[in-house]
């Protein structure tokens, strides 16, 4: 033993040996100063110190070397049991991949700041009111005059911007026949400047491009649209295009990466707000208001100021509202303005999917935890098998730290492969989920970059996962007591206790996942099976526009032409499609009485419309050619209920009350069954239908610029007729053009897109969770039989029956499953209120909702226990005892 290590042994501790080092170092310096030969002075201290003092890196090298050796050893351990390792990696990869996908989606939709300067200063204005069920509800639409008042009032504290809801509109660059769709957004002229954006080509709007209504026919293209539509052609600046009858000139292209302020929608064309028809109307709220709050401005006083202005505006406006019940006016005024951070922009997609994504990410996190518990159990079982090896390592001098490192490195291998595989999974799965959000006509576009945010998340997740499943077994392995382990085994129960606890946790999580999945699936089922009152099968809807408004007779002519197309059964014409998202509501007055506060929903339709949609007639007749608006009406049962006390209204008159007090008189000619009007979730609304053909106050036919042909086809696949009908419409009248064709089924299904997504994904992860938990249970039972085979052998030798053995082997684990299931149930009940908004007519306390996960888990547990039980019962006591 060298003298240095003698000192080191004498005075343990890092600090002390460092002091000794330093003292000796100073000794050597002194010696050299006194003229001693440096090499000789150093040699006097022996090799240990020389190694240490030649380079401080030595220790690092030693550590790296040990790391390498342990990594190699861990790799060999992994390869020894390829199947288990592969299963572990696969289940972890699924968990990590799903979590990373969820993060990518949440990040892209909700977290990622807009690519503008100082996005954290951005806030969105919204209004909160108490809804019909006493629940607070918010909306964020504003009328331009109110916006203008607010903007002027807070100019010193914040810059307010008007940004319309994006819409998909028809754009023409050349002849009318080549009409195409583009996402359009009206924005304040100063928006680009306020966002600190620079044009990629041409110029962007300024405040002077947004001054007078209708005076600034300019457009800025988004970079993506410029790329996809024009191949980044710089000559596009100065080109013109038409939207309806308005001609716009392209003046510039926005910067790369800026796609507007609505995550989920990539805007194609920006247009100054002043170009919006009716921009200054006080009674149409058509835009959002974003505020860039200046640094150092307190939010609450700013909010209060805006609130006061908004309230004053609404009060002023309410004075001009005649014929609207007072309670509704009070509701309108009783609102609170909200100023919310909007660094990531604002979009409907965010609102629709915020809770859904949160719920889904909790589900995938639970799946990941189940996978972790599985791998932890696997590692614990392996560690048990290696207890002797560990004991040997300890007895020949391996430190605790080194053993932890050894086991953790094995976990690291697993985590590394799982992360790599999970990364591939996430890369593939996130866009897939976005594609599953596919309402017809406006599929969302989310940018899903794999940048440092996603990579960082993946890395943290991987390390977290590794510690989660690796640390407990590692610490346990390193705490092995050599004496007891070498003697033939420590207390076997201690290890099983950890495993059993993990089984309970797994079961609880699995129960929760299945429970929530069941709720989502039931919601989707109920929603898609909800009767709509009409038959969407084999129905095509042709949204049709005309170059300029055309006389009603021409519209009837086109409908007549379409009726003659082979394969067409019936054709109706309507102002809009059912469930298409449009709504037109007004109050109704019967016998001159004031409106009763119930809104009626209205639609204009031609003769044959009810037939095309198979809406049943209860009384009266359909419209005839020659019926006009205003004049006659067909109403539904709820309407009769709401305004005629359920009596048959056919032959009776009513009045529609418009804002401003104007009234129009109609006579009921027909009574039809209820149909869903606006949203598939809503109760049936009172509805009245008026003739499509309108006349003005003087009785002259009023030209119409857009309508929708409702075509019932005889073939099973209505889309087969789509291209023919698209061609036939302009052939009937050249002024007419089909701008969009959808099947009514597709429109109906668009209301359940979110529910379908949730149901599918939750079901998928429910199956995965069940599979993982089942495999985990199987593994633990199998291990415990293996470990207790001596005991079982003895018991059997003493006369235990197969049933006793089976009970003994599975008893503990099954009680853990029950504990877990109860915990899961409690968790489920606790979590339901967070997802209440996502459910439809599903009660979590419904026994069926509880029975499903319970029975599934029990069945899975029985299945998982079977092999272990068979193995236990088949133990041959004679052989087992001989082995000892």
């Amino acid at each position, binding site marked *: 033993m060298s*003298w240095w290590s003698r000192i080191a042994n004498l005075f343990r501790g890092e600090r002390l040996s460092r002091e000794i080092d330093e003292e000796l170092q100073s000794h050597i310096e002194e*010696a050299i100063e006194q003229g001693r030969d440096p090499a000789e002075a150093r040699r006097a201290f022996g090799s240990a110190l020389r190694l240490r003092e030649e380079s401080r890196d030595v220790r690092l090298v030693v550590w790296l070397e040990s790391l390498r050796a342990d990594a190699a050893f861990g790799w060999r351990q992994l390869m020894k049991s390829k199947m288990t390792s592969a299963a572990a990696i696969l289940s972890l990869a699924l968990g990590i991949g799903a979590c990373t996908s969820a993060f990518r989606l949440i990040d892209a939709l909700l977290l990622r700041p807009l690519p503008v300067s100082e996005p954290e200063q951005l806030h969105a204005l919204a209004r909160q009111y108490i809804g019909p069920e006493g629940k607070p509800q918010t909306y964020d639409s504003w009328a331009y005059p109110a916006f203008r008042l607010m903007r002027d009032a807070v100019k010193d504290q914040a810059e307010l911007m008007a940004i319309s809801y994006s819409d998909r509109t028809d754009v023409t660059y050349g002849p009318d026949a080549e009409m195409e769709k583009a996402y359009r957004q009206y924005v304040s002229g100063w928006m680009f400047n306020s966002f600190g954006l620079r044009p990629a080509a041409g110029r962007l709007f300024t405040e002077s491009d947004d001054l007078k209504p209708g005076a600034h026919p300019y457009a800025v293209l988004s970079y993506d649209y410029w790329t996809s539509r024009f191949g980044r052609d710089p000559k596009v600046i100065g080109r013109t295009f038409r939207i309806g009858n308005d001609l716009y000139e392209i003046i510039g292209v926005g910067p790369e990466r800026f796609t507007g302020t609505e995550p989920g929608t990539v805007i194609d064309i920006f247009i100054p707000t002043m170009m919006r028809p009716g921009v200054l109307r006080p009674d149409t709220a058509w835009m959002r208001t974003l505020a860039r709050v200046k640094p150092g401005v307190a939010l609450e006083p700013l909010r209060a100021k805006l609130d006061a202005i908004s309230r004053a505006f609404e009060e002023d406006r309410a004075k001009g509202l005649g014929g609207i019940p007072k309670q509704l006016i009070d509701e309108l005024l009783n609102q609170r303005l909200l100023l919310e951070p909007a660094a990531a922009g604002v979009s409907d997609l965010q609102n629709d999917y915020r809770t859904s994504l949160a719920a889904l990410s909790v589900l995938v996190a639970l799946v990941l935890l189940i996978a972790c518990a599985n791998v932890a159990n696997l590692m614990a079982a392996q560690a048990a098998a290696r207890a002797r090896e560990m004991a040997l390592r300890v007895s020949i001098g391996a430190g605790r730290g080194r053993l932890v490192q050894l086991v953790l490195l094995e976990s690291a291998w697993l985590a590394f492969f799982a992360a790599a595989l999970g990364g591939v999974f996430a890369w593939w799965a996130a866009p897939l989920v976005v594609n599953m959000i596919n309402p017809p006509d406006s599929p969302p576009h989310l940018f899903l970059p794999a940048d440092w945010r996603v990579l960082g998340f993946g890395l943290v997740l991987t390390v977290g996962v590794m510690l989660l499943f690796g640390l407990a077994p590692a610490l346990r392995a390193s705490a092995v007591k050599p004496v007891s382990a070498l003697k033939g085994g420590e207390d076997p129960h201690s290890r099983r206790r950890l495993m059993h606890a993990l089984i309970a946790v797994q079961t609880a999580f699995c129960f929760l996942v299945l429970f929530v999945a069941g709720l989502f699936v039931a919601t989707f089922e109920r929603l898609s099976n909800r009767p709509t009152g009409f038959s969407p099968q084999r129905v095509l809807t042709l949204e049709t526009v005309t170059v300029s408004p055309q006389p009603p007779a021409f519209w009837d002519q086109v409908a007549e032409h379409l009726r003659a197309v082979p394969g067409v059964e019936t054709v109706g014409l309507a102002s809009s499609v059912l469930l298409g998202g449009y709504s037109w509501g007004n109050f109704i007055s019967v016998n001159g009485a004031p409106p009763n506060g119930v809104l009626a929903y209205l639609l204009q339709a031609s003769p044959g419309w009810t037939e095309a949609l198979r809406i049943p007639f209860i009384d009266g007749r359909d419209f005839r050619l020659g019926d006009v608006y205003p004049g006659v009406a067909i109403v539904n049962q709820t309407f009769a209920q709401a305004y005629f006390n359920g009596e048959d209204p056919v032959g009776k008159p009513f009045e529609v009350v418009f804002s401003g007090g104007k009234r129009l008189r109609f006579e009921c000619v027909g009574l039809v069954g209820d149909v869903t009007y606006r949203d598939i979730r809503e109760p049936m609304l009172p509805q009245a239908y008026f003739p499509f053909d309108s006349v003005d106050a003087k009785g002259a036919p009023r030209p119409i610029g857009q309508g929708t042909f409702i075509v019932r086809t005889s073939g099973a696949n209505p889309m087969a007729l789509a291209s023919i009908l698209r061609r036939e419409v302009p052939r009937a009248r050249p002024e007419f053009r089909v701008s969009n064709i959808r099947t009514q089924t597709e429109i109906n299904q668009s209301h359940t897109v979110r529910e379908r997504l949730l149901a599918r994904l939750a079901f998928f992860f429910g199956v995965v969770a069940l599979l993982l938990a089942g495999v985990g249970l199987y593994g633990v039972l199998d291990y415990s039989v293996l470990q207790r085979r001596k005991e079982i052998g003895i018991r059997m030798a003493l006369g235990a029956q197969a049933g006793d053995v089976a009970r003994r082997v599975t008893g503990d684990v099954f009680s853990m499953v029950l504990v877990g299931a109860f915990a899961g149930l409690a968790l489920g009940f606790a979590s339901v209120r967070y997802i209440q908004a996502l459910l439809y007519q599903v009660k979590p306390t419904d026994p069926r909702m509880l029975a499903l996960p319970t029975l599934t888990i029990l069945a899975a547990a029985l299945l998982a226990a079977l092999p272990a039980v068979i193995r236990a019962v088949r133990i041959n006591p004679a052989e087992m005892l001989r082995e000892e």
Partner: protein
Amino acid sequence: MPKPDSLQGSLDLLVLKILSRRPRLHGYAIMTAIQGMSGDVLRAEEGSLYPALHRMEEAGWIRAEWITKDTGRRARLYELTAAGKKQLAAEESRWLVVTAAVNRVLRMA
């Protein structure tokens, strides 16, 4: 040249004695002092001196203190404690007894 081991038993005495004459010396100074005062006859090797210093410090005979020298390098200075002075006296008298005894044997033999 005597081997380090030839100092066995007397190294403590030498170190204590030197420190009693010249307090606050660092290890290297103690080593050169032993060498110089013995007329180059005695020599404490580093490998014996430092363990001895630390052992005596543990025993409470000497105490050590870090200082920063003008060169900026830190050095560890040793000095005698009260217990060290007692120990020196005891060691000294033991040494005298032993050497006297040895001398007597040498003379009589």
